[in-house]
């Protein structure tokens, strides 16, 4: 086991999958010689050559459209869109084709591709480099939408995404690319896509989050325990679609109180779906309204104000206290 950042863990997943299967091809802007602007594809060109770590011209729609063709032919493309804020140019290829070819061809064709892309705020970036628009993809039938929260699960989920027979959108939180290290085993690890995890057990309130927001959520849970003696049950969704509601429904049945934390804007955000599931399946167990701690319904501000936009520990703690006092 080695202690790795999420960048290194993702790199390990790509390297090992490329070693195992020559149909795995990495492509995108600056993924070859430069090793990706965040270095996730670092060294792949040296080990596998420029045909398997393919620098493309600057065209997001081109990258994704071509990946679809490669996947249809039987390859396993893992394309990188440099920032999710630029992924709107490839959106129509994802919505119109990647997500539908299996259905359109009545199962004769399928698109086993992965679209990796950094998302989220908190790194003092320029405009278009900080948003969190996972719902755009989670809303599309035929896609899977995965968001890891740390090095170890990022590695395992990426391996599973590459082997998945359907297209997977894989969001990587920029704020946690290098924020902390975890032990990541050299030997293969996979994780089921569409399965959430209980991170800390508790009986008082269910806190549901994912991705880069898991850090402030877990910190808030510690603060609630230390200052208020509250035991929060924290759930990491890991996949937004398919959404695993089993664990959080079980949890709410026990705690009777729930909150959802995400940095995406509130209205029509992932929280809306999660809250609906709770209302549908755990309504009679609820003892308080479910709260959402989220980004606001405005464009994420430039970095001097972004910390006021992003849910932080204090915002999460006070929302939890409010929920608990009801």
């Amino acid at each position, binding site marked *: 086991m080695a202690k790795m950042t999420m960048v290194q863990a993702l790199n390990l997943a790509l390297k090992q999958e490329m070693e195992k299967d020559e149909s795995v091809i990495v492509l995108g802007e600056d993924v070859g010689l430069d090793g990706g602007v965040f270095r996730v594809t670092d060294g792949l060109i040296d080990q596998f050559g420029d045909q398997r770590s393919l*620098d493309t011209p*600057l065209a*997001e729609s081109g990258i994704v459209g071509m990946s679809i063709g490669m996947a249809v032919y039987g390859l396993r493309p893992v394309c990188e869109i440099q920032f999710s804020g630029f992924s709107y*140019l490839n959106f129509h290829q994802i919505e119109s084709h990647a997500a539908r070819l299996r259905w359109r061809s009545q199962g004769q064709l399928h698109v086993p591709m992965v679209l990796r892309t950094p998302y989220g705020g908190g790194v003092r970036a320029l405009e278009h480099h900080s948003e969190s628009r996972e719902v755009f993809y989670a809303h599309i039938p035929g896609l899977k939408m995965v968001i890891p929260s740390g090095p170890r699960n990022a590695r395992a989920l990426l391996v599973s995404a590459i082997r998945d027979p359907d297209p997977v959108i894989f969001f990587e939180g920029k704020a946690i690319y290098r924020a902390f290290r975890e032990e990541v085993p050299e030997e293969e690890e996979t994780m089921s896509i569409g399965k959430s995890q209980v991170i800390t057990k508790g009986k008082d309130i269910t806190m549901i989050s994912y991705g880069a927001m898991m850090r402030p959520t877990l910190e808030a849970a510690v603060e609630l325990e230390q200052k208020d003696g509250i035991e929060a049950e924290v759930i990491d969704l890991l996949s937004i679609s398919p959404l695993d509601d089993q664990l959080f429904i079980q949890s709410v049945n026990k705690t009777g109180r729930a909150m959802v934390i995400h940095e995406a804007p509130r209205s029509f955000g992932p929280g809306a779906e999660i809250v609906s599931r709770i209302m549908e399946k755990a309504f009679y167990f609820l003892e308080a309204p479910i709260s959402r701690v989220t980004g606001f319904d405005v464009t994420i501000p*430039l970095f001097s104000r972004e910390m006021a*936009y992003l849910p932080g520990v204090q915002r999460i703690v006070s929302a939890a206290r409010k929920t608990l006092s009801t």
Partner: protein
Amino acid sequence: MPRKKIDLPYQVEYLSILDEKGELDEKLDPNISDEYLLKLHRAMLLGRTFDARLLNLQRQGRIGTFAPITGQEASQLGAVSALRPSDWFVPSFRETAAELWRGRTMESVILAFGGFSEGAKSEEKLNNLPVAVPVASQVLHAVGIGWAIKYRQKDDVVMTFFGDGGTSEGDFHEGMNFAAVYQVPVIFVCQNNQWAISVPRSKQTHSKTLAQKALAYDMPGIQVDGNDVLAVYVAATEAVERARSGGGPTMIECVTYRMMMHTTADDPKRYRTEEEVEAWKKRDPLPRFQKYLKDKNLLTEENINGLEQEIKDEIQTAVENAEEQMKAGGDPLDMFEHAYAELPPNLIAQREELKQELAAMKEESNG
């Protein structure tokens, strides 16, 4: 005849007037007025000096990421100086020198790179669009403005900027096609600086030139030495005159070089050689133009030193003003400003929610 050559009435022209040694092709000298030449020189020097100061501020953590323009002063200023103020300017994100020419203040640039949306504010109404980060997306906006100018029967023109990488995007091709179909008054300026982050021009497109992309749309395309401010000015002036007189769009490819990193978050040593950078330093647009001005007895080394000091002082004032505003800190509640013409009820409620949170946090930190 089953098979014959279609005779297309165009080719790609290359223009260079002032070569890298500062030697002038006198036949092509555009005879720009002394005053305008000096104004251009000052703008180039300002662009270069401001860039160095921004880099310094970024390295000290006083501003965030930005995209340097050093080496591309002639390419952007030669082009934009062919416009008149009522014309429209539609930049990408590496045209800081051109933005200053078009009336943007240095304070606003520093504020924007410092993470303050106030950097987009302007006291006067300028016919400039703000920086567009998604590559080549702005090209289509220029075409829309051009169409509207034609519809309103005005004689203004639009100039849009993009890079070599931008020519790979669909938006670029759609923009070029629309502009040619509607024969709108748009000048497409490609700053071919040889690198799209780590991808060299040779891997960006298989075409021999970028200017030839114009031919597919039956639009005049010209390649110029982008480090020769006179050549860029001449090509831009011709294109502007053609557009203004109803002759439709033009594409200009300025062959230049990104002397610095893509942005301050990038390390070019990973993908390009020091020799290449050194070779391009010899083609620097600034010394050759200064030699030309000295040969014309318009400039002395002393003048240059004096001008540099004057520019540094101006920059210093701008930095101080911007930092004063940044230190005061923007009100976080301003993130709700300009979301809509009129703030809808859900946002009024969210604004109030944030206000209370901030007040509670302040109380907690005081208590």
